[in-house]
C-alpha cells in the first residue's frame, strides 16, 4: 500500500448536482493510490476547524490524477468546500481506509446498494465492476425524485431506485426495492446510514450472500492513531484486542459477518 500523505490538491471544477449536494473534481497525485470505497480527509481553511473531514472517493482517474468527491453540505466544513471555485487549493489527507474488496466479486453475481449520501462511493465501485464485466445490479435509495448520479449508474448495469416519497422507483427503502424486484446476489457491497446497513446485513443472510458494508463514524486522526472511530466487532481483532475495529484504517468497509451492529 502506498504511503499516506497530507498534500495540497487543486480544484479542477465544482458544481451542484442536487439540492445541497456538491460534485467536486480535485487534481492530486493521491489519485494514483485510490481504490473504490477509500476516502480522503479534507481540511478547511477556516482555522477554527482543525480536523480533516472524511469524504469518500466517488471516482478516481489515475491517468488524469483526479479524484471526484460528491458530498452533502452538512456543516461548517462542507459549507466552506462548497464555495471553492476552479483553481482553489485544498489540503487533503489520504488515501485513507481499505476500500471495497473487489476480488470477492470475481465471477460472482454482485449487488451494490447505496442510500443517501452513501451513494457516491458506489459509483466508482460500479464502474470498476463494469470494467471487469461483472454481473451487477445496483439499488440506490433517495429521499425524492432528486436522484443524483443515477444516470451515471445506469451506464454500469441494472439500476433500481427506491425513493422515500415514491416519486421514482419503489416507494420505500432500498431493501423494499430489492424485495419488490426479487434481487438475488452472491456478494453485496453497501454504503449508507446505519439502519440501512443493518437491513442489508439481514437481507444478505436471507438470500445467502456475503455483504461488505462501508461504515461511518466521527473521526479525528483518520489514520488509526486516536481510536476515535471504532465500531463493534464480533470477534477480538488483531489490533484492538477488545472487539473494536477502527473504521478509518481497518475499514471503512467490513465483512458484515465480522460486525456487531
Amino acid at each position: 500500500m502506498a504511503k499516506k500523505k497530507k498534500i495540497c490538491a487543486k480544484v479542477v471544477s465544482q458544481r451542484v448536482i442536487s439540492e445541497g449536494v456538491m460534485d467536486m473534481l480535485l487534481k492530486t497525485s493521491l489519485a494514483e493510490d485510490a481504490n473504490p470505497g477509500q476516502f480522503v480527509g479534507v481540511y478547511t481553511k477556516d482555522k477554527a476547524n482543525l480536523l480533516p473531514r472524511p469524504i469518500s472517493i466517488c471516482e478516481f482517474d489515475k491517468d488524469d490524477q483526479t479524484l471526484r468527491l460528491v458530498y452533502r453540505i452538512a456543516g461548517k466544513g462542507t459549507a466552506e468546500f462548497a464555495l471553492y471555485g476552479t483553481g482553489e487549493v485544498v489540503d487533503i489527507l489520504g488515501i485513507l481506509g481499505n476500500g471495497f474488496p473487489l476480488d470477492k466479486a470475481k465471477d460472482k453475481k454482485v449487488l451494490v446498494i447505496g442510500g443517501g449520501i452513501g451513494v457516491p462511493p458506489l459509483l466508482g465501485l460500479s464502474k470498476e465492476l463494469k470494467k471487469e464485466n461483472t454481473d451487477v445490479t445496483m439499488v440506490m435509495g433517495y429521499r425524492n425524485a432528486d436522484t443524483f448520479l443515477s444516470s451515471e449508474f445506469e451506464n454500469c448495469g441494472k439500476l433500481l431506485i427506491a425513493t422515500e416519497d415514491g416519486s421514482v422507483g419503489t416507494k420505500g427503502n432500498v431493501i423494499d426495492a430489492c424485495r419488490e424486484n426479487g434481487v438475488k446476489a452472491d456478494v453485496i457491497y453497501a454504503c449508507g446510514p446505519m439502519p440501512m446497513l443493518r437491513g442489508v446485513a439481514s437481507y444478505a443472510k436471507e438470500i445467502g450472500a456475503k455483504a461488505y458494508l462501508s461504515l461511518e463514524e466521527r473521526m479525528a486522526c483518520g489514520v488509526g492513531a486516536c481510536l476515535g472511530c471504532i465500531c463493534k466487532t464480533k470477534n477480538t481483532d488483531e489490533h484492538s484486542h477488545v472487539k473494536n475495529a477502527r473504521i478509518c484504517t481497518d475499514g471503512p468497509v467490513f465483512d458484515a459477518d465480522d460486525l456487531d451492529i
Partner: protein
Amino acid sequence: MNTKINIAGVEFKNPVMTASGTFGSGMEYSEFVDLNRLGAVVTKGVSNVPWPGNETPRVAEVYGGMLNAIGLQNPGIDVMCKRDLPFLADFDTKVIVNVCGKSISDYVEVVDRLADEKGVHMLEINVSCPNVKEGGIAFGQNPDALFEITKEIKKHARQPIIMKLSPNVTSIAEMAKAAEAAGSDAISLINTITGMKIDIYRRKFAIANKTGGMSGPAIKPVAVRMVYEASHAVKIPVIGMGGISNAEDAIEFIMAGATGVAVGAMNFHNPYATVEVVEGIEKFMKEQGIEDINDIIGCV
C-alpha cells in the same frame, strides 16, 4: 548547537515528544514522519488488561480544538510488550510508556510488568484522564491521593516516572508539589480540560460520554500558565503540552519552564507536526543565537 535535554538521567536528543494517545504506538505516524527524529515517542495509555473504552461518538470538533472521550481503550500490557515495544525498539528515540489503571494495584501491575523491558526509558503515569469513571482522574484531582499513588508506584518502578497532571484542579502548584514530595522523577502536563458540546438541533451531546477532554490550540494559554506555575513550584523537570502546533508554541512552553514538550491533537491536523517542531526549534535557536536549548528553559 545543543538540543539535548536530560530528564531524570535519561537523555533525549531533543525536547520534542508525542502526547500520549495522539500518536498510537508510533506505527501509524511512521508513514508520515521519521521517528528517529523525535526526542521520544510516548505511547497510548496501557492498562493491565485490555480496555474496551467508551461508546461512540468519541470525538467532536470544537473551536480551535477537539473533545475526546476515548475512555482509554487499549489492548493491554501484554500486547504492548509483544507488538508495540519491539516495533519501537528499531528506532533511535526514547520510549515512554503511558500507564493507566482503575486502582493502585492496576497501575502497579503494569509498572511491574515493564520493569525488565530494556526498551522502555520512562513511565508516564496517567492519573488525569477525565473520560473514565473510576480511577484515573480521581487520583489526579486530590493531592493526597496523588501522593499516595505516586509513592506506591515509585516503590515498584525500575524506570524513572513522570506523573501526568490534570488541569481540572484549583491549584496545579499543589498537585505538582504532591507528586514531587512522593518522589516522582518528573511531571507532565496538561492532560485535557473537561468540556462539553451539545448538538442543539438534535438536542444531544456531541460525545456519547456527555463530557470529553478538550485539547488543541484553544487550550494553549491555560497549559502555558499551568506549566509556568508547576515548574516554579517544584524542582523536578516538567514536560509541557497542550495545543502545541509549531516550534513557536513549543518554545513558549520551554520558556515557561518546560524541559520537554509534547505534540498532541495537532498531529491530527498536521501529521508532520512533530518533526516540523524539531526543525523549527533548531531554526529558532540558530536565528536567535541560542547555543543550548537548556539555556532558555524557564527564561521568561
